[in-house]
């Protein structure tokens, strides 16, 4: 099944059927179109991943959906409620966990949660119970009285998420929930997200980590330069770039160009070269043709030191769709993809 550019079904008529329904969202900062016509449809009870590099417009999109920022154009509704006209209702339905912990540095974890609970209309006693309950659930009970300045990044993130869950909102925005966390803490955050979905919440998650979207999201929108460039399930997105990819390491670097030409001629696709490793990656739509390629190489006297076949990762999806690497302006992608294959970094 090939993923169309925009495959979300639009049969739902009334907005109630969608947790998020956004059409043509635009936000301009000066001359920079941070968000340039984003459409999103999110089904209730699912995890929706918004994937893109830094500066792609992910946070701006969330801010518009979470009533924090007014869109310059387009409409958005949360469970059928317009984010601008019915902002206060939307705020009763969402929880927002920002990229930077939105909790009070000078206060303790308990004080933070009690104040947020009170603001949300809970009574004095109720707030205390709620705070204790959430701290327990997020494993922060021991640190409850400590000032937040002494919290680690992971603890802060957990407290932040706890604060978003006080009102048990049906829709939760998580803006890069695991950026900067160590692998163990990231795993815990993933578990928490899965639990939330199990309890009936809908989650919109932004990430620049492809494997994170792959692991968690039911559907993924790839966003680049303020636009949704692809949308679908992880499998659909992967299928759109070919079933697998062929990886070749050429013995003599001088032959590289010839090898690329041969690939283009025999497989009918363009290979991608990783400069530092002198490795060629090419989509492999039809495994049968690889034999032809290898024969061509032998005839041309091109020798291989290594040949392997890799199932597609979202990294390649991203590279193929946008023409540049997901982690372009960024540090390394943590972990590895679902096959446990270490990925090469392309510093394009």
């Amino acid at each position, binding site marked *: 099944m090939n993923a169309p550019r925009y495959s979300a079904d639009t049969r739902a008529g009334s907005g*109630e059927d969608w947790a998020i329904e956004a059409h043509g969202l635009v936000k301009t900062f000066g001359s920079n179109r941070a968000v340039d016509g984003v459409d999103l449809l999110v089904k*209730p009870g699912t995890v929706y991943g918004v994937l893109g590099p830094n500066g792609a417009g992910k946070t701006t999109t969330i*801010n518009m959906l*979470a*009533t*924090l*920022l007014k869109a310059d154009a387009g409409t958005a509704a949360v*469970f*059928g*409620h317009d984010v601008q*006209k*019915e*902002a*206060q*209702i939307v*705020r*009763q*339905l*969402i929880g*927002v966990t*920002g990229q*930077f*912990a*939105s*909790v*009070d*540095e*000078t*206060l303790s974890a308990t*004080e933070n949660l009690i*104040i*947020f609970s*009170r*603001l*949300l*209309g809970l009574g004095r006693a109720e707030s205390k119970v709620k705070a204790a309950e959430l701290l*327990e*659930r997020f494993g922060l009970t021991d640190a409850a009285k400590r*000032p937040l300045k002494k919290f680690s990044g992971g603890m802060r993130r957990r407290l932040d998420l706890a*604060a978003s*869950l006080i009102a*048990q*909102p*049906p829709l939760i925005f998580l803006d890069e929930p695991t950026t900067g966390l160590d692998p163990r803490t990231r795993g815990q955050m993933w578990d928490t997200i899965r*639990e939330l979905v*199990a*309890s*009936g*919440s809908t989650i919109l998650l932004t990430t620049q980590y492809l494997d994170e979207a792959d692991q968690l999201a039911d559907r993924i929108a790839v966003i680049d330069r303020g636009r949704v460039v692809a949308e679908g399930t992880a499998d659909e997105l992967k299928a759109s770039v070919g079933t697998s990819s062929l990886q070749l390491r050429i013995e003599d670097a001088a032959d590289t160009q010839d090898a690329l030409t041969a690939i283009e001629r025999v497989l009918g696709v363009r290979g991608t070269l990783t400069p530092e490793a002198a490795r060629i990656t090419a989509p492999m739509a039809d495994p049968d043709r690889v034999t032809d390629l290898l024969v061509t190489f032998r005839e041309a006297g091109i020798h291989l030191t290594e040949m392997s076949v890799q199932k597609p990762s979202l990294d390649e999806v991203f590279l193929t769709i946008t023409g540049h690497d997901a982690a372009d302006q960024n540090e390394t992608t943590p972990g590895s993809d679902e096959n446990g294959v270490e990925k090469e970094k392309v510093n394009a």
Partner: protein
Amino acid sequence: MSTIVQAPLKQTPGRITPPSERKLKNHTSFSQTLRNTFTMAYRGLVKIRRTPEQLVDVTVQPIIFTLMFAYLFGGAIAGNVQNYLPTLIPGILVQTVITTSVVTGVQLREDMDKGVFDRFRSLPIARIAPLSGALLADTVRYAIATTITFVVGYVIGYHPAGGIGPVVLAALVVIACSWAISWIFAFFGVIARTASSVQGISMLVLFPLTFLSNAYVPVKSLPQVLQWFVNINPISHLVTAVRDLANNGTVGADLWISLLGAAIIVVVFAPLTVRAYMRKA
């Protein structure tokens, strides 16, 4: 009968109530606005308790200013310190407390730069609450400054003839007016880009306003043009109102003018500040 209940390994929270079964309203009631404001004020108080060092300006400044001005100008202006105190203490009280209200704007700016304000804006609470709460909490600072000024004055020999009742009333008037004026600095705080620029703009406004008043010197000693300004300066009215109350126990027109001025400031600047706050991303 004993039953062994196996505790689940992980506590799963109850099912989320679907949006269609929730009671939702798009408007914030007045009582909710008050409740939210008090919660935000409570937050401000907890913050003060956590960082007591930020109270330096309301504790040390009244002591230093009162002593300094009393002994510096007392002899020159009123012949001796004792005679100067009934004039000086109300003046320095107004000046100190209003200067303190600048800090409200500066701290609001610093506070808003932190992520927690993003959360406040995403909560279904009264839009004005983060501002009104912060300003309300700061009245505690004004109360501290007021008390200290009166106490220092008392120690160096100021015995207000009006008696304790009018003095307390005078203190409340000063606190109320400073709260009103703090909306101006809150506005600067919201629209300014950095905390230090708030400090700069505010001092630029406040310095001429507090010194070009009847707070320290008799108005008659001033040149004609300055007299004109001093007499229309709202600070002068507030100072006179406090003197009337503390020294004579009387309520004059100056008190009503001061309160009216304070009310006008709130009516103009509170909506302006909230609007600017809402627009700020």
